[in-house]
């Protein structure tokens, strides 16, 4: 293969038909930017979900008399330790509870309290949010727990919240997959239409190439290279654009009141996780392949013998 010749043919034709080339690059840019945005959003959502799941905790309030008796307290602690679903737990003393209360509601209220009304508690984290309900139930009828008679109000956990959250998380996951697929298809269609237009404009050229005995691949290579270059240029621009947008948004949120979202900047080059490639490698590979394949497919009808 004469790469030099094909490359100069491809670049030359892009220079000559630069309006078409720009249109194609913009198309790729838009498709890839949408795809990149979906990618970043999904990544951030996944992280948000993980951190939310980790935050689901069960508060078990301890009766004052149990708290005063080291032996009973130890028994309760052992019970917690024995539960396999428990990831970690912490005991919160009365003083610490008051301190937290102070932080949340201010000094004035706390200073006016004659005694510390807050009970001591255990904060239990489970390994999986799905297990919250099961673990919490283990303490419903425990005599050491500070329940009002006939209720389970000594065990606090976000039961409804957890259920709704899990449902929402699943739904959002599906929506994101759907969006990825739909925008992926839209990108393919947009790119192949653009390529087809640019090849239609040059069908005479293709006819002449065939006339002088060019093999199909000889005709195809410059077009495929052109599609490839178009795809890569568009994808690089899109990756930079999405990354910058992501970065700016993350910066802005960090300084605002909704920073619990912990928006993360998707790495441009490389990152860990289920999808290790960063924005740039991902989009460039997709863009390059789409561009090249789009050209090859669009050429097919002009290359029938």
């Amino acid at each position, binding site marked *: 293969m*004469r790469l030099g*010749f094909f490359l100069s043919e491809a670049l*030359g*034709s892009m220079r*000559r038909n630069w309006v078409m080339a720009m249109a194609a690059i913009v198309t790729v840019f838009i498709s890839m930017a949408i795809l990149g945005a979906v990618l970043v959003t999904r990544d951030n959502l996944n992280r948000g979900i993980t951190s939310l799941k980790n935050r689901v905790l069960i508060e078990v309030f301890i009766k004052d008399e149990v708290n005063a008796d080291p032996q009973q307290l130890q028994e309760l602690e052992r019970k917690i330790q024995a539960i396999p679903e428990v990831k970690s737990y912490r005991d919160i003393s009365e003083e610490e509870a008051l301190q937290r209360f102070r932080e949340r509601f201010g000094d004035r209220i706390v200073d006016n309290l004659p005694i510390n009304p807050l009970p001591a508690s255990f904060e239990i984290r489970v390994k999986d949010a799905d297990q919250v309900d099961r673990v919490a139930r283990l303490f419903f009828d425990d005599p050491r727990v500070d329940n009002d008679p006939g209720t389970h109000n000594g065990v606090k956990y976000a039961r409804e919240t957890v259920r709704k959250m899990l449902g929402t998380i699943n739904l959002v996951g599906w929506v994101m997959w759907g969006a990825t697929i739909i925008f992926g298809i839209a990108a393919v269609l947009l790119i192949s239409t653009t390529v087809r237009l640019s090849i239609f404009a040059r069908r*005479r*050229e293709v*006819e*002449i*190439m*065939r*006339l*002088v*005995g*060019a*093999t*199909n691949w*000889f005709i195809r290579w410059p077009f495929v290279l052109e599609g490839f270059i178009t795809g890569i240029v568009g994808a690089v621009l899109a990756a930079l654009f999405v990354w910058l947008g992501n970065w700016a948004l993350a910066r802005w949120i960090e300084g605002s009141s909704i920073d619990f979202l912990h928006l993360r900047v998707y790495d441009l080059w490389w990152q860990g996780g289920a999808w290790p490639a960063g924005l740039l490698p991902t989009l460039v590979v997709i863009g390059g392949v789409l561009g090249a394949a789009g050209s090859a497919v669009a050429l097919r009808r002009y290359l029938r*013998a």
Partner: protein
Amino acid sequence: MIVFEDVTKIYDPNVVGLQDFSCHIAKGEFVFLVGPSGSGKSTLIKLITRELRPDKGRILVAGRNLETLKDSKVPLLRRNIGCVFQDFKLLPNKTVYENVAYALEVVGEPRRSIRRKVPEILSLVGLADKMDSYPHEISGGEQQRVSVARAFVNHPPLLLADEPTGNIDPETAIGIMQLLVRINRTGTTVLVATHDREMVNRMRRRVLQLENGRLVRDERRGGYDHPGEANGEEA
């Protein structure tokens, strides 16, 4: 070089392109193909380059049976056939030099030999000083000479010309025709489809006359018209 045996080509739905056409053109011949528009001249040429396939009959070109020729081998067939058209079919965004060079690039000719052959053939057709011009910058006659140069730069054994002088003035047409004759003298078989009565009459070569897709005359040193109805204008 070219053998047609009972070839029929019908276009959809019922238009006759070529009907039971048989002929034999030997290597090194110079043949005129005459007849009114729609008589099948272009169909014949397209069948030779296998742009079209016949509905019936057999075609051999340079020993290849076009019926059994694989699609992937068609480019190889076309490299052995130089083609010249009425509308020149030059690539508008390539220079004269690049247009001719393209036919060599396609065959995988080394860069160095391209650089030698293209100026050579361009000076043969008298365009050595127009190498860097674009097709739209030169006259029709010059464009046609570029197209002849491109067709002949590979020294193909067969050269087809479909109305090569149709778009240029008579003076220039003579030059083009002389070029084709010179090419023919190097041993290349030349087939020219034309309307140019005066040219055919002057040259006195073999003439195949088509009418409604049928061969109505095959004369060794013929004029444009039937000998019986010759109109006396012959030179």
